């Protein structure tokens, strides 16, 4: 094992990989060789740092210099200036990392300052493909402790005591789930991990698997010991190739080192893990559908009870938890339930990872203590709304959640508060919307998604969501009536009450919450045939203002020749010809074209 004076950490999460971080790693290796630095500087590929907006991200230790938006061409400069001569290349640093010419440590950057990383603690710190780096940061220590010093009941007691709640969305107490599975009768039992992350825009679980796959292996093994199972399945979607690859490597390495397999730590405990790939159906995130899919059957839910804790995979007692829930387990074992309970609110302990997206400056992954307010997440960590636009609402919980309007922005985030506001924690998607987002259109977008993803087993979901979508289409096209709004509301309540599984039961939430907080927008569409946000195509038109300089750029940009006007005269758009593509507005150098 070699010692190095400097480590260059390059993010190899999905986000940064898609912006060529692997090429950056290659270039660093080449540059180090050219400068004879291979023995002094080590290149490490890591999981997601969270600040995806600034990707590809490179961090150089021991300085903790935080480089953002790095291109292959920049590598030469970083190598020659920073690595060779020790001069941090300030102009390539993340903008917030330089204040009055003082380079700030990565932990001091606003984006990270308010975060508390438990589930993501190794993401962006270790090389996920190197089991020894995981062990260096106390990896597998919790497993060793559990197997050699604790009885299964004691493990369950600690998880119960910690008040950890399921991070997949429902928020069911994890310790209780473990206890049910442990007490269930059965000759064989299974542990399963739900990594079928389906919410549009959510990538928390993917990032944990990509950045710290061993934590899942370790936690599931602990769970196996606690409930008396010798076999585990990780159900993960095939569209997460990097996560699948790293998890498989983690399983193989753990087996090689005797951390999985037979007689782990010389005890009588055997445990094995297997990956099951899903085809990316949203409904397979529902636990009974997921179990069917693991068994090789069509991914459809069935009524509960019996719950998986009693009848799960192959009808055997099964413990099913989400990726992020598992990612908390080793830390709870090592630091004790009191430590975990000290973080968070009265009813929701610990932290939650959110995928921050939409109209926000710092798109990315954040982990915050429960009880942090939406305002802190959006303005302090997220850096606010781009272009000085006004915050309108935040959508949490993906297609099952709802929109929380600006008046509730100071609500502390926890399971119960979000449900009270008509939304939910969900798996952790957080989409920020500004004044340009039409709330009817947002509801329509999510309904469109659920209609596609409904498995079709029960009529309320299969037929009901389709009817809701049709009504929403009608309203956004300007053909809605007030009766439609009433019908929509009634349908939504009925679908919620009558659907078989969580997908149908929560699918109306986006509609119900927008109706609750933004009813006037629905009414504007219906009564005035107007979209207040100017987002619904059918209800808005492009106009050229008096400030037009008559440069003719819009005229050239228009693909259907709808714009006319003399040079240096105000131009006009022929609304009958216009196809509302928006090209003219995008090209106008004087911001003289508006949509309303």
């Amino acid at each position, binding site marked *: *094992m070699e010692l190095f004076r400097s480590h260059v950490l390059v993010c190899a999460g999905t986000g940064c990989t898609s912006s060529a971080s692997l090429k950056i790693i290659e270039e660093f290796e080449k540059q180090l060789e050219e400068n004879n630095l291979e023995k002094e500087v080590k290149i490490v590929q890591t999981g997601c740092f969270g600040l995806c907006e600034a990707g590809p991200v490179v961090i150089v230790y*021991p300085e903790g210099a935080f480089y953002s938006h790095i291109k292959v061409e920049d590598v030469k400069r970083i190598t020659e200036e920073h690595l060779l001569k020790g001069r941090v290349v300030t102009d390539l640093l993340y903008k917030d990392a330089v204040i009055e010419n003082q380079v700030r440590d990565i932990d001091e950057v606003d984006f990270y300052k308010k975060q508390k990383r438990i589930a993501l603690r190794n993401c962006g710190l270790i090389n996920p493909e190197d089991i020894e780096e995981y062990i*260096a940061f*106390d990896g597998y220590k919790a497993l*060793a402790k559990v197997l050699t010093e604790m009885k299964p009941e004691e493990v369950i007691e600690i998880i119960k005591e910690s008040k950890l709640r399921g991070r997949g969305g429902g928020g069911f107490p994890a310790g209780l789930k473990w206890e049910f599975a442990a007490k269930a009768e059965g000759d064989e039992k299974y542990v399963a991990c739900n990594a079928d992350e389906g919410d549009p825009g959510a990538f928390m679980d993917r990032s944990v698997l990509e950045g710290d796959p061993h934590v899942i292996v370790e936690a599931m093994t602990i769970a196996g010991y606690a409930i008396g199972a010798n076999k585990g399945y990780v159900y993960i979607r095939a569209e997460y190739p990097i996560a699948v690859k790293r998890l498989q490597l983690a399983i193989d390495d753990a087996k090689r080192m005797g951390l999985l397999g037979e007689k782990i730590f010389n005890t009588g405990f055997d445990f094995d893990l297997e990956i099951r790939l899903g085809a990316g159906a949203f409904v397979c995130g529902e636990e009974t559908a997921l179990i069917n899919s693991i068994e090789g059957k069509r991914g459809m839910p069935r009524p509960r009870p019996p719950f998986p804790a009693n009848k799960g995979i192959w009808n055997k007692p099964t413990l099913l938890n989400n990726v992020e829930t598992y990612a908390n387990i080793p830390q709870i074992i090592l630091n004790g339930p009191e430590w975990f309970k000290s973080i968070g609110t009265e009813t929701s302990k610990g932290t939650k990872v959110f995928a921050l997206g939409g109209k926000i400056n710092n798109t990315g992954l954040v982990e915050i203590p429960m009880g942090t307010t939406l305002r802190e997440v959006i303005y302090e960590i997220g850096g606010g709304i781009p272009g000085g636009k006004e915050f309108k609402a935040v959508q949490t919980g993906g297609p099952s959640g709802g929109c929380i309007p600006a008046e509730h922005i100071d609500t502390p985030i926890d399971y119960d508060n979000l449900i009270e506001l008509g939304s939910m924690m969900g798996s952790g998607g957080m989409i920020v919307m500004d004044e340009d987002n039409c709330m009817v259109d947002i509801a329509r977008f999510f309904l469109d998604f659920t209609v596609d993803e409904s498995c079709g087993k029960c009529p309320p979901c299969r037929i009901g969501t389709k009817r809701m979508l049709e009504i929403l289409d009608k309203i956004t096209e300007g053909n809605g009536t007030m009766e439609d709004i009433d019908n929509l509301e009634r349908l939504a309540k009925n679908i919620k009450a009558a659907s078989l599984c969580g997908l149908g039961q929560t699918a109306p939430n986006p509609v119900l919450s927008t109706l609750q907080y933004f009813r006037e927008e629905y009414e504007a569409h219906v009564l005035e045939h107007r979209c207040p946000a100017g987002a619904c195509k059918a209800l808005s038109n492009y106009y050229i203002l008096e400030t037009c300089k008559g440069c003719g750029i819009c005229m050239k940009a228009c693909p259907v020749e709808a714009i006319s006007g003399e040079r240096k005269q105000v131009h006009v758009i022929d609304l009958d010809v216009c196809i509302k593509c928006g090209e003219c507005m995008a090209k106008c150098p004087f911001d003289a074209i508006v949509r309303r």
Partner: protein
Amino acid sequence: MKSIADLEKIREAALERVNLRSDRQGIRIVVGMATCGIAAGARPVMMSFLDEIKKRGIEHVVVTQTGCIGACQYEPIVEVYDGDEKTTYIEMTVDKAKRVVLEHIVNGNIVDGYTIGSYKK
């Protein structure tokens, strides 16, 4: 993997490799590696520090580099930061580096003879 002791052994060995990412306390050995430092032979000095620390299995020590410290005539310069205390060693060589590791880092005694304060023409 047979026991906790086995795991601990791997952990200790691996920690040495990665602790510069998390360790912000500990001792920092900073080698001046500007053009002047490199020309005066800073690179072998730094490698000597790295080798010696590895050989002795010392934890919580970070070796890093910096730019020109400003006293080019005394290069290679090495600064050792231990808490609030800073020691500046000048005109370092491979052998001097080894002695600094042994006496200063391991035993906690500053090698007075090598410091900038004791420099005499």
